[in-house]
Structure formats: C-alpha cells, structure tokens
C-alpha cells in the first residue's frame, strides 16, 4: 500500500505547497510595502543629509541630485559658528533635567488623582487637560514676569522650571490613565505588609510605570529639544543657549541658504537621534505596553 502512494508521488514530481507560497508572497508584499512607507518617511531626512554635503554650485545646478562627493566644508563652517559642543551640552542638561522633574512630579501628582474617585480629583484632571491645550502666547508673558520677579531669568534653573511647568499637564494626563489601569489589589497587598502611601507609590506603582515613563520621556525630550522660543525669551547669556538656538541662527527671514541651514539642522538633530537610538528598546516597549494583554 505504502509503495503505491510513494510511487504516485514520485511519478508526479515534487508537489508545490501553494499555501506556503501564498503566505510567503503575502509576507514579501507586506514587508515591501512597509519598507516603501519607511523610505517615503525617511525621504525628507535623506534630502536634508544629502543637501548638507553639496556645494552651493551643486545645489544651484541640480537641487535634487546626489552630491558628486561628500563636501565637509559646509559642516566645518556650521560648526565654527554654532558653538556646537557647548550648546549640545546645554540642551542635554536642560532636556534631561526637565524629564526628571516632569516624570517624578507628574507621577506623584497622577497617583492620587487616579485613585481618588471624587469630583475634586476629576476637576483637577480636567484643568490639567486644559493645560495641554493652552497656546504658547497665553503663557509666555506671565512666565516671563514671574521669572523676572523670582530672579530666574537667564538661569538654567529657570528654563528647566519653565519647561517642567509647561510639560507637567502632559505627564499627569499620561500617568493618570495608566495608573488607573493598575489593579488596586497590588496596593492592598503592599498595605497588608504595612506600607504607607509613599512606600506603595515608590515600591509598587513607580516600577510599573517604566514603559509609560519611557514614552512620556520621548515626547518631552522631542518637545524640549526642539523648542527655541522659551530659551530665546528666558536666556540671554551666549554660554547657556541651546543647540536649537544655534540652528535658528541659520534660518533667514526671506529665504534659506541650504549650504548653511542643512548641515546645522543635521548637527542639531543628531544628538536627539543618538539619544533615541540608545533608549529605543525602552521607548518601543512603552509605546506598545498594554497593546497585548
């Protein structure tokens, strides 16, 4: 019997697994589509980098063409007038400090707001949400006047506090929703072990916030890094200026010079990309946390 089936199979040659072929085709198509979308999204970035390596004549003659060779002169010129190292350090210091303050204060504020089910806490959350929608020009003058009275103008502490205050509503909004989804039983178990409120927050809730903290940090990092209005307003000492202010100097009122602006823009966003690459795993974990339970 066995030999009959084998003989038949052998006679008809190796059979095609159509299911496998269909699955593979689908997979290749899906991957191809994703790669195409990624390429489209990366196109502006590629264009920025490509332009930064072209001479002004090359740009004039063929704005969309590839550079004949990598011309580093644009970068040398940008670096010489940006005060790059200093401004990057300033930006990193300010950004990291703001993230720390926002994460800590935001989580501590969100914990009681998420757990207290009364009208007051709901109103506070709503007020915080309003803070998200408040436009820049509404807050800019009060912040400047308050900081002048507190003697916080032209100080790193001032700019960190300003950014922290502006981003705190976002943190509270993030954390309140996330903490509300954490089972209360975890806290009850801790309380049975004689933990007080602070210990419950620090030892039980805080570790669970890691993924959402990573995502929040990414948001805050991008917003603080790219903002130039507040540093422009609150800082005057050249040694305290941020990297985006250094890039801002290359933007004209009535046009742009690509040989200056593009290398400056690449240099300005490079540290952010490096930071993102370093924290990528945590950030992605945070972004997808809760998607699958």
């Amino acid at each position, binding site marked *: 019997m066995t030999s009959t089936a084998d003989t038949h199979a052998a006679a008809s040659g190796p059979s095609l697994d159509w299911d496998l072929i269909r699955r593979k085709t689908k997979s290749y198509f899906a991957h191809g589509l994703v790669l195409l979308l990624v390429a489209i999204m990366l196109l502006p970035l590629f264009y920025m980098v490509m332009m930064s390596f072209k001479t002004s004549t090359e740009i004039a003659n063929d704005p969309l063409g590839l550079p004949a060779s990598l011309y580093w002169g644009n970068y040398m010129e940008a670096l010489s007038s940006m005060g790059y190292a200093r401004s990057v350090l300033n930006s990193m210091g300010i950004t990291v400090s703001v993230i720390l303050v926002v994460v800590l204060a935001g989580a501590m504020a969100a914990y009681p707001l998420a757990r207290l089910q009364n009208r007051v806490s709901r109103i506070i959350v709503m007020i915080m949400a309003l803070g998200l929608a408040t436009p820049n020009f509404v807050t800019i003058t009060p912040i400047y006047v308050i900081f002048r009275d507190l003697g916080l103008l032209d100080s790193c502490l001032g700019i960190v506090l300003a950014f922290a205050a502006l981003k705190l509503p976002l943190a509270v909004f993030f954390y309140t929703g996330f903490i509300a989804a954490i089972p209360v039983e975890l806290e009850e178990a801790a309380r049975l072990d004689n933990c007080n409120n602070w210990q419950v927050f620090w030892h039980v809730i805080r570790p669970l916030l890691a993924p959402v903290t990573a995502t929040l940090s990414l948001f805050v990092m991008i917003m603080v890094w790219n903002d130039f209005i507040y540093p422009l307003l609150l800082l005057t000492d050249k040694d305290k200026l941020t990297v985006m202010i250094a890039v801002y100097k290359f933007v004209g009122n009535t046009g742009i010079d690509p040989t*200056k602006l593009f290398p400056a823009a690449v240099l300005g966003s490079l540290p952010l990309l490096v930071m993102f690459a370093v924290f990528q795993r945590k950030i992605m974990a945070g972004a997808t946390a809760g998607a699958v339970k």
Partner: protein
Amino acid sequence: MIRTFFTTSALAFVLAGTAQAQTVLDVVAWKGNEAEPAGLPELIEKFEAANPDIDVELTYVARKDVDKVIPPRLQSGNPPDVTMVDSSLVELWGGAGFLKDLSTESDWYGNMIPAVQNVMTTDGKIMVFPLEVIGMGNFVNMDLLAQAGIDKAPVTIDELTAACQALSAEGIAPMIFAGTFPAMLFVGANGIDPANNTSAKFGMGEMSFVEDANFNASLDGVRDLVAAECFDPELQAGLDPWATAPQEFKSGNVAILPQGAWNIGGFSSVDGLNYQFAPMPSSFTEYGLALDLVGPGWAIPTEAANAEAARKWVDFFAEEENLNVFLEAEGAYSPFMGGKATMPDLATPYTEAREKGSLILWPFSTLEFPKPLQSEWEDSITGFLLDIDQPNETTLQRWDDTIEDNL
C-alpha cells in the same frame, strides 16, 4: 608677602571695577545672523572699537518670532536696549508707549526722504531710526532671455508677454508667479497708479477694490500673462515663494522671478548666474514700476537699561559710512537724501525707474493697507490662481471685507 597680597588685592579690585564699568548693550534684531548678516558683525566690531566701554550682545530673533519674544520683555519693564522694528511695530509698540522718542531735532531727521519721514513720524515723534528702503521687482536671468533672442529685461506688460511667448517657444519656463508674494507684487504694481496713488483711501475704506477699475484690470492682467504662457496658474498657486522659488531661479530653471532685492547677495554668490534686477512691468508706466518697501530701523525702548549707550548705537548708524555697510550688504537704498549709491550695477534698470519717479512705496510697509490685508491678499490671490475664470469680484470683495473689519 603682605605687600604682595595687598598689591594683588588692589589690582583685583581695579580690574573688577573696570569690568563693572563695561556696559553690555543688549540689541535684538532679525538681521545679523548667519543667514542675513547685513554687515552687522563688521559694524559691531567697529562700534566696539569706537566705544571701548560698550560690549554689544546681538540676539537674533526672526521677524515672525519678534511678536512672541519681545512683548513680554517690553511689558515686564526688562526690554532690550535696542530693538529692530518695522513700521507696524512702531505703530503698535510706539502707540503703547514702549518706545522712546528719538526726537525730530536729531540731525538725521531732516535728511530723511520725505515719504519715509511721513510714514515713520507719529504725532510729531520719531521713534525709529530707519535703516533702509528696499526694492521689490523682477529678477531676470539675462542668459535665458538671450536664448530667446531678447537682450533687455522687460519693464512693460507688452515686453513681458512678448518675452514669455519667446521663452516658452524655446522650452524655457518664463516666470515664477507663486500665489503669495510674487503674485502680490504684480497685482499691486498694476492696481496702484503711481501718478494718483490712492492706497490710503482704500485702507480707510473710502474706496472699494471691487469698484476700482485699476485692480479689476490688474487681475485681468494676470489672465493675460497666463494666456501668454508666462506660467501655469494652478502650479504656481502651491509654490513656496521663499525657498523653492529663489532656488529655481538660482538653478537657472526659470527666467523671471518677482522678489525683493534682499536676494541680490544670495543670487550674486551663484557662479555663472547672469541676472538683472528690474522694476515690475506695469500698465501705468513705460519704465516699469519700482516697488519700494520701507524697511526696518532701530528703536530704543522706553525702559532700556542702557539708554545712553543705545543712543550711541543709533547715532553710529546715522553716520553715512556705517549705514552704507549695512545697505551694501542688504542690496538696499538709503532712507536718507543724497549720499553714495550702494546698489550694484545689475540693479540699474530698477534704479533708473526710481530716478524717473516711476515708484510707489509698498502700501503694506507704509501701513496705508492694514496688516491683515496682506494675508488676505496672499490667500485670495492663491485662490484666484486656482480658479482663474472666477469673477474678479470674488477676490476683490474679500479685500474690501478685510478693510471693513479693520476700520
């Protein structure tokens, strides 16, 4: 040992005293950065050499951000010592009492071009030292024109349409007419009669755009340009006039670009770009119409901490040789009478039109037209380009409505 200690201490005190005597002049401007140096780095160096007790700290704030960054400083009594302003800021901040009167008794005041003097003087006060009057017209690629058999930049409508047809026949893109700024220049130059400038009457609502024959003819003129194959209106409606349009001109992809003379520096840095700066072709004049924009100037805020040093800064620019450095770098004309010409030869067609009196001051810079009308012009002319067959009234009524809203 004790003597050395006291000598060192005394020296330290003297040095500290000297350092404290140094005045830091806080200057805010939307020029002087890497993109638009306007000769300011050189001038700051010269000013500091002439005033060794003053250090100038120039902060660049782009014009579009000035309205966000400077008002909090003015309102809180902590303004910069000197700030760059334009006519609309003089009206706004000066009207609110934030700017010092620089005095009509100043030596330079009487030497100002009368039209600029009129614009900048409010209630007998002059709150700004004007730095420039800058031209707006057509940049013309003379090599591309030569390929089409033309050797002169067009300055009349007939010359422009003939040039468009000839260029188009040669397969050369004749003209950029981006829906915002470039198109506005043409529409303005063909709507405002220099011999009978009624801009102020439009601005005060005494005249209606819808009923005005000149502005109706100006929009008809745009249709004539389309018919002459100067440009494709729908393509131009979406073109960025500030980055893409100048880049296209630099690349030699288009023959004519309506823009401001502030591009002269950038265009002149391109090897092999043979171009001229010409007045805008206009049905009102055979010379082309020079569109002069009253540019920025320096103002001293009322509560400036270093008002005396700030005044020195203004007086420094009042010296012709210093102002000329700024004007040459900008490609601009002096707002004062007489003086040395600073414009390059390539701007001769524009300068000739000015000298023949074929000139208007751009009504948005003189505040004859309210500021909100500018964005309405941009939006509505873009809409017009997208639907060139719509009645003129559709576009012009929007302007009248904006004027009415701002009376």
